[in-house]
């Protein structure tokens, strides 16, 4: 088992003929993902290296019984692409695109409240259920099949921490890059119940970031509702307050979302917090003993 994606995932690639889209479609296919169709407006009927291209997500879904989509679409068109996938009833939508306007993401968030689709991202490395399906841009050699669920707000740390776990013999059930934007399709608080209910996940790693209130709310949720072991890591102990460090999501504002408040929340929920990325695997090994 795993969450959201597995060997039954039938993937559409939106923007398959673009620079990033074509590169990563090839990689995902090499990595064993079942890509059933590409979608490029105006290019319906064409073909990308044996993958049939459709003009709309709906056509692709109907023709190929697709249930997931990944998007390599420029920021100006990304929210329209997401809405198109939601409209078509795609169950899992991954949006890699960095740079979607936050007001557009607020609109998508409103729409998602009324729909069953999962949106992972935007501005993320995607997600992977190792050895079954990769909907993303990550290098698979960092991951292998196992029982650790990973959810992260940082793309770069996903590799770092996943690789350390893999080398320590701790493979992953599913690795989810939530993305670095302020308004995301999916937060820790949304994904944790899935891991909690997945029999194949024995331990969950959360890689947080400063800014927002997701870690605080999730810690409280875990304290109240969850029974599996959780491990957290949080970058940003050395960040000066009120300074934007790359991600819009890392703005520290209104006294919420600081490094300290998140660490405190995890500790109060009894969730161990690693000091360095490497410590995640040490704690995980200890907890899984």
């Amino acid at each position: 088992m795993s969450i959201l994606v597995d060997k039954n995932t039938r993937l559409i690639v939106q923007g398959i003929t673009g620079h990033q889209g074509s590169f990563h479609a090839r990689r995902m296919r090499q990595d064993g993902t079942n890509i059933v169709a590409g979608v490029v407006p105006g290019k319906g009927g064409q073909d990308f290296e044996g993958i049939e291209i459709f003009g709309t997500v709906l056509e692709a879904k109907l023709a190929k019984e697709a249930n997931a989509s990944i998007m390599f679409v420029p920021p100006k068109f990304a929210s329209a692409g997401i809405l198109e996938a939601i409209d078509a009833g795609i169950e899992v939508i991954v949006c890699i695109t960095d740079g979607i306007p936050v007001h557009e993401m607020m609109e998508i968030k409103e729409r998602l409240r009324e729909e069953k689709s999962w949106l992972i991202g935007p501005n993320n490395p995607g997600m992977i259920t190792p050895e079954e399906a990769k909907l993303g841009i990550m290098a698979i050699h960092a991951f292998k099949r196992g029982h650790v669920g990973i959810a992260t707000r940082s793309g770069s740390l996903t590799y770092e921490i996943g690789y350390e776990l893999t080398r320590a013999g701790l493979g992953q059930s599913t690795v989810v890059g939530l993305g670095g934007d302020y308004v995301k399709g999916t937060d820790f608080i949304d994904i944790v119940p899935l891991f909690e209910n997945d029999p194949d996940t024995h331990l969950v790693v959360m890689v947080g970031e400063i800014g927002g209130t997701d870690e605080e709310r999730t810690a409280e949720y875990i304290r109240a509702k969850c029974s599996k072991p959780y491990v957290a890591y949080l970058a940003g102990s050395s960040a000066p307050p009120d300074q934007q460090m790359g991600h819009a999501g890392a703005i520290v504002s209104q006294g919420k979302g600081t490094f300290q408040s998140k660490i405190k929340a995890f500790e109060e929920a009894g969730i161990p917090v690693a000091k360095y990325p490497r410590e995640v695997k040490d704690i995980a090994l200890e907890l899984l003993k």
Partner: protein
Amino acid sequence: MKLYEYQAKKIFKDNSISVPNGTVCSTEKETGDAFASVGKGQEVILKSQVLVGGRGKSGGIRSAQTVAEAVDIFKELMDTHIKGFPVAKVLIEEKAEIRNEYYVGITIDPTFYRPILLISSRGGMEVETIARESPSALGQYILNPRYGIPSHEILRLIGELGISKGLSMPLTDVVKKLYKIFCNYDATLIEINPLVESSDGRLIALDARLNIDNNALFKHPELEELKKDFVDNKETYLKEKGVDFVYVGGNVGLICAGAGMTMATMDLVNAMGGKPACFCDVSAGINPQSMELALRTVSSLDGIQSILLNMFGGLTRMDEVATSFIAAWQNMGGISLPAVIRLEGTNVEEGRRIMKENGFEMFTNLYDAVQKAVDLVR
């Protein structure tokens, strides 16, 4: 993108929010003229235009009684940095008669991802301070973007905060206008602090803050115009070239890929006894040009003793990183500082080969690399 106070005030004024009479000045001549036209010979206020909060406490807001004094203060303000930020211009305004000070702001709530309205009966201090010190003086309303802000919810806040009933209409009006600007300009934050009740009972935006979502700037060509007034700012310049850079002030110069990884590396340098000199994330696009820009910027920082290049690649391919680094290094004719390189991830073996060919040792283990970089500054 943060706007300067005078730029935000222009937008406020265009949307019928009252602001004090004022003129923004770049020269002594303009300052002299402004003293006459704005102050009508009376006392004026001189405000440093700078993209950082708390400028009042840092001496960035002054008053002048005479032309001569105004010009002297102008020169002084233009020469100062506030919290390390350069002063772009000086805004000269009439002195307002203040009966009461309020706070009004709209931003995006980090929990519900909907716009949130904040009103306080205590203006003039940072909203974080109000929230901490007198939470009962701060009212909040998270709104349904479908319907905007219903007037009755604004009135409820005004009532709960004990703000004078006479201000209900004008304050509601200001809030509605702020929300309109918030939406129309793709703002992430819009704020009036303080919003003052003048002695004649009007509400005037004494300060103005307007932050625009960088991702939405393509929808606002009119804001491009404003950029030409921005003073040369290293961070902004680098960001446009694909290098996300913040100066922090230590001895280990970092070049990393990914915000999370960059912050984690900073934390690790700190923990291992070094001091990170900067946040420097080149993941937006790695090529010889951006790499050279990053190398030049980092290597020229004061007090820098070693450079640490640290990347774990997914989208970023390590052979490209290596090639770019070598090209940049060679183009600069080499650098006199020791460089520690740690690469891991996509195409790492090819990257190692390229580095080795060019005489660079390469780590794959993060901790060994950080240790090495920190050892070099001891």
